[in-house]
């Protein structure tokens, strides 16, 4: 039993050992350096926890549909990115890319100022 438990742990150790030994000169740096190559191709955080579920890749609506102008007058578009409470929905939930989120949030704020969108709570 003891041998069996040892056997699986040994390869794992051996596979991880080269990375720290390579970067010994950097002191305690190997930690962040090691996981990065492994984490990249792995894709999605689903693997780390051992749970295997399919998570749909979020894409930026503005990039995909090639919407260039994010205007404060376009309430229907902006309303898709405002929660029911009136908050701007964060990027990590909507998948909007950074440059577009920046324009989006400023457009929403302009729309709020002219009473097209609510500051808090539902419109109407």
């Amino acid at each position, binding site marked *: 039993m003891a041998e069996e438990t040892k056997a699986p742990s040994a390869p794992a150790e051996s596979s991880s050992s080269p990375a720290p030994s390579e970067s010994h000169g950097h002191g305690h740096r190997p930690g962040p350096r090691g996981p990065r190559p492994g984490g990249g191709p792995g894709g999605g955080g689903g693997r780390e926890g051992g749970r295997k579920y399919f998570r749909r890749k979020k894409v930026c609506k503005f990039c995909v549909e090639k919407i*260039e102008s994010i205007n404060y007058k376009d309430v229907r578009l902006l309303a898709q990115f405002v929660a029911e409470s009136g908050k701007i929905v964060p990027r990590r939930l909507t998948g909007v890319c950074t440059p577009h989120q920046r324009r989006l949030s400023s457009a929403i704020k302009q729309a709020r100022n*002219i*009473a097209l969108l609510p500051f808090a709570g539902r419109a109407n």
Partner: protein
Amino acid sequence: MNRTYEVMFIVRPDMAEEDLDKLISTLETAVSGTGGTVKSVEKMGKRRLAYTVGRFHDGVYVLLTVEGGGGLIHELERRLRVTEPVIKFLTVRIDEEQKRLDKIKKIREARKKPAPAPAATPEGGETAAVTV
């Protein structure tokens, strides 16, 4: 220094139509008086406000596109502030955004057109890079 601005303002819903027209025409004369030009006036009609402003739940939205310098906007906003039936206004500078949009449009058209023309080589290279 010519810039393009969009001035959106809301007037109270119980205002008479002819009073609104009069207000808009006075604003127009104010714009031309300070050395600007009115490019367009759009009455967007009555809309429900997202929140109560003063004691109003509705408002008549008017969009004014003007061209001119900052002094013009200063004067225009002062007038809007003084005018009682105007309950809210917002000024947005739009020329730079328009410039950006025109640029993107141009790039897109340029990319579309040369596909069958001799300039097909750069596109081919691009697709090759994507597949690799």
